[in-house]
């Protein structure tokens, strides 16, 4: 489908000027497109595909801001006094810790967590053929799971409706990023990205170094105020002389609890080779009876588990962001990416909801079109559309719990008075959601709760447990 000559649908006319300007240019010069420009998940790319971030990264600036502001106040107001009275090592240690924290944070945020690329149309067709034995005519296809044995333990592999493949073990689909992520731990809003196989070690070093930094600043500020009050006329005088210290104290005090708690929790996870996802779901705990449970991935040795998780070989990014799209796919990819453009740019139109619905459908059609060498790729689009259209009938009960929160969290979606178009656009994810609820619940939750409390750390983990 090429919309090079004319615009067919009204919502497109809203972005018609960039389209019409681009189309003649596309015909003349085909700039080789990189794969990140046609990426189907909800991610943002920077530096021509070198850096990847989740689209919803609202709290990352806050995290960075808090760290930079607190450290800045520390260096500006507390360090001069402490250098004078104690030692010059204090700002040096503080500086090293601060750099380490910021480097780990940026690394966690901008690294591909282990996103699995979606199955090509041929693969999807092949898998469909293999499982399509029942041929039932119910509204929903039967739940697709496959049981395999890993180290003599039965593990269920679920079929991901969005990515059109059976998820490898320990992989989960993140609804916020709309990607399957390997060794999915959780989606961290503070870091603005999923935490998965490839960036877990950076995340862990971030929270550990942040624990050290906050404890260090807390200790130094207490020392500072104590020394001042001893030298001067008491504690009130000391606080009046150095008001910034109180700000730092408050921030550090509230963050220390959650950060230390989180560090402890993740140290436990690393030592037992578990992910947050598995721990919260209780996949390997004694729910089903002691003889059946047991983590099949553990090496039964704390040191080995730690080494494997933190120092193991670094797998490469599977999505090949900077590779070039093959030229024969460049034209339909251009059309697909032109439809991708509207979702990426911030919108303020009231009919964005319907446009995003159409975009989702068009994207689904095109992703099966341009991946298919085989003509059998095309008929797949009709079951796709049917799958989506059958879902809203049952989508309503799910909306009240999760999607309303999702609406609140999506910065680009304006409050849309019509719930059904939004339900429609969410429904293609609903199928993947209903079988991976914990990941969805982990993703959607308590930033709304934790934003009210100024804590540096992963609120969702702690705030989530009571809900479970």
């Amino acid at each position, binding site marked *: 489908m090429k919309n090079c000559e004319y615009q067919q649908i009204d919502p497109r006319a809203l972005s018609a000027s960039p389209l019409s300007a681009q189309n003649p240019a596309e015909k003349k010069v085909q700039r080789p497109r990189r794969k990140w420009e046609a990426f189907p998940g909800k991610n943002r790319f920077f530096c021509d595909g070198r850096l990847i971030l989740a689209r919803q990264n609202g709290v990352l600036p806050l995290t960075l801001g808090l760290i930079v502001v607190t450290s800045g106040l520390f260096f500006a107001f507390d360090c001069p006094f402490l250098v004078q009275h104690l030692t010059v090592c204090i700002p040096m240690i503080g500086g090293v810790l601060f750099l380490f924290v910021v480097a780990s944070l940026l690394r966690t945020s901008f690294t591909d967590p282990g996103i699995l690329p979606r199955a090509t149309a041929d693969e999807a067709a092949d898998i469909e053929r293999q499982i399509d034995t029942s041929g039932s005519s119910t509204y929903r296809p039967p739940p697709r799971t496959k049981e395999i044995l890993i180290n003599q333990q039965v593990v269920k592999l679920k079929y991901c409706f969005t990515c059109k*493949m059976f998820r490898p073990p*320990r992989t989960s689909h993140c609804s916020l990023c709309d990607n399957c992520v390997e060794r999915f731990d959780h989606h961290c809003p503070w870091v603005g990205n999923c935490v998965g196989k490839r960036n877990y070690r950076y995340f862990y070093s971030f929270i550990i170094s942040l624990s050290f930094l906050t404890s260090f600043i807390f200790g130094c500020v207490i020392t500072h105020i104590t020394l001042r009050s001893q030298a001067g006329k008491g504690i009130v005088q000391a606080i009046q002389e150095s008001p910034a210290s109180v700000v730092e104290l408050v921030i550090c005090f509230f963050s220390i609890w959650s950060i230390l708690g989180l560090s402890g929790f993740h140290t436990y996870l690393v030592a037992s080779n578990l992910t947050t996802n598995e721990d919260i779901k209780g996949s390997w705990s004694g729910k089903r009876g002691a003889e059946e449970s047991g983590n099949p991935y553990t090496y039964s040795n704390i040191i080995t588990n730690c080494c494997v998780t933190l120092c193991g*070989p670094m797998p*490469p990014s599977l999505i090949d962001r900077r590779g070039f799209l093959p030229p024969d796919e460049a034209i339909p990819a251009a059309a697909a990416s032109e439809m991708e453009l509207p979702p990426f740019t911030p919108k303020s139109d009231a009919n964005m909801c319907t446009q995003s619905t159409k975009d989702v459908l068009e994207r689904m059609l095109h992703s099966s079109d341009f991946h298919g060498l085989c003509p059998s790729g095309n008929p797949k689009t009709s079951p796709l559309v049917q799958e989506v259209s059958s879902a809203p009938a049952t989508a309503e009960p799910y909306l009240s719990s999760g999607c309303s929160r999702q609406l609140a969290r999506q910065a680009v979606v304006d409050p849309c008075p019509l719930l059904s178009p939004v339900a429609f656009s969410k429904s293609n994810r609903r199928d993947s959601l209903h079988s991976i609820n914990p990941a969805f619940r982990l993703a959607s939750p308590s930033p709304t709760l934790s934003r009210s409390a100024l804590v540096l750390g992963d609120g969702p983990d702690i705030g989530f447990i009571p809900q479970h």
Partner: protein
Amino acid sequence: MAETHSLQDLQQPAVSSKVFIQRDYSSGTICKFQTKFPSELESRMDKQQFEETMQTLNNLYAEAEKLGGKSYLEGCLACLTAYTVFLCMETHYEKVLKKIARYIKDQNEKIYAPRGLLLTDPIERGLRVVEITIFEDRSIGSGR
């Protein structure tokens, strides 16, 4: 007649079907592919050769993901240099992936292309499947 055929000769014939070799998770999450010989290839090549190719691939991936002193050292060095060492050095995994790419190209040229087959490097499919494209048997060049 040349024994090896350039792939360009074979890309002109139509694709008749594709076979996907899925991952084998029985040993955990390490990258390993099933070695079971698919029935669609029975008319085209020997079971032995196919299994040998798959076994070699599995061994290469195991080498990439091997946990040992060398990989730990690399991990620790990377951590200490704040991962800047990878700006100038390739990771062990990437080195082995290049080796795998060369091996697949070699196998394609020697074994698969003469039989009208094409192995696709699994990294291009996100390490999910080994895709084998079966080309229609035409009389032009693909003699056996």
